[in-house]
């Protein structure tokens, strides 16, 4: 595994994304961050902390589990059900979905379906730490930490405390 981003890189990225979110939404009043478990949640927490600093008011992040909305439940190993915690009303909010890696786009497709069952947001935006390409659906991110061109055989691994023991981004070949 080769490290491509350090903990400091990740801190700068979350701060920059926070600024971009404020710029896009003209403030934070109607912004609701929803992290996709497992690693989207701690990343959303970091962006929320940066947003709170910038805006001077408390911004909290929720989580949106998409396991029950996957389109490949039949073929993948048993999915665990993660927490869904929506701290503010969905209706009329500017939702920012937060995930670690954007790849095929199927996770985000599932997240959009899950959101639609929970309410009607004004807008849905997408923030990811790494966009590694290879989309299988017409989905694009609004806020990107780093575009990381990869081959399908490679593996991109984002680590975030406290889910992991360390923080950073690694890339590895098919053999690990």
């Amino acid at each position: 595994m080769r490290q491509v981003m350090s903990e400091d890189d990740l801190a700068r990225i979350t701060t920059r994304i926070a600024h971009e979110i404020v710029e896009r939404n003209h403030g934070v009043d109607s912004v609701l961050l929803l992290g996709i478990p497992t690693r989207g949640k701690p990343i959303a927490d970091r962006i929320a902390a940066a947003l709170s600093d910038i805006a001077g008011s408390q911004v909290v992040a929720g989580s949106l589990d998409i396991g029950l909305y996957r389109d490949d439940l039949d073929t993948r190993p048993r999915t665990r059900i993660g927490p869904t915690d929506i701290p503010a009303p969905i209706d009329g909010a500017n939702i920012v979905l937060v995930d670690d890696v954007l790849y095929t786009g199927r996770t985000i497709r599932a997240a959009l379906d899950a959101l639609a069952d929970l309410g009607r947001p004004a807008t849905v935006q997408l923030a990811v730490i790494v966009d590694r390409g290879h989309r299988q659906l017409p989905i694009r991110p609004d806020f990107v930490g780093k575009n990381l061109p990869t081959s399908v055989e490679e593996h991109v691994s984002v680590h975030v405390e406290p889910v992991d023991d360390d923080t950073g981004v690694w890339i590895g070949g098919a053999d690990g």
Partner: protein
Amino acid sequence: MNHLLSTEDVDRETLEQLLSDADGFSEVLSRPIPKVPALRGKTVATMFFEPSTRTRMSFEKAAKALSADTVSFSPGTSSLSKGESLKDTVLTVRAMGVDLMVVRHKSTGAPWRIAEWLDIPIVNGGDGAHQHPTQALLDCLTIKQRFGTLDGLRIAIVGDIRHSRVARSDIFAMTTLGATVVLVAPPTLLPVDAEDWPVEVADDLDDVVPSVDVVYLLRVQTERGGASVFPSLSEYARRFGMNSARFDRLQDHAVVLHPGPMNRGVEIGYDVADDERSLILAQVTNGVAARMAVLFRLLGGEHDA
């Protein structure tokens, strides 16, 4: 886990995982649209060879909340009354394109036989006086939501243990999860094999009341000959009923569970049933979430090898 037939052979990790999933499904059920597409395209058959309304409704609600389709079977209106065998009946229903069967039967072991005949997951919805594993799951879920864990809790199961599939299922699930179970029953209502179980046994409810965290009251099953094995309902109520006086002697944090339907004034006092510390309606609500966890475990994702 390819079937859920009994709590006796389910390990702690699997139980904990089912309870954790059930917690997630409780959240789903509290949403404005309490439905997720996880089991879209799957069909769940409820095969109730013995009458039941609530358990069947709970399974059907669970299946529908996961977007599965349901078909149901009732013995009174079926070819069973025309002499069709159990095996032919379930093979016929399987051939319609059913992905999972929930079976309730008055004969012990019927769900195991059906699991041998068919190639799909079978969930035991209650077989005779033997097992009723989803009831145990919802009971454990209710207790876990209240106390955070079952580990170290002292739980009294009171009443007709001998004829109770609920008791058998609860005993194994609760002790696997780390609780201590005390059976409280007149000797005539204790099963002969109780001494082989990982439980304590007492015959005086008043001795047990001050020390327990949970009191699980079993229904007096008049339809299974309950009334013939003790002198009278009023004597049962006097010795084993959770009346107000006994309720007041419970620890402040202790709670009361009952699998329903209740006989108020017999195993549970009229006022006790409505107290905030009686979790009977929470059990019913949790039944749907617990059964969702079981259906999802058996139908969502690849089966265990």
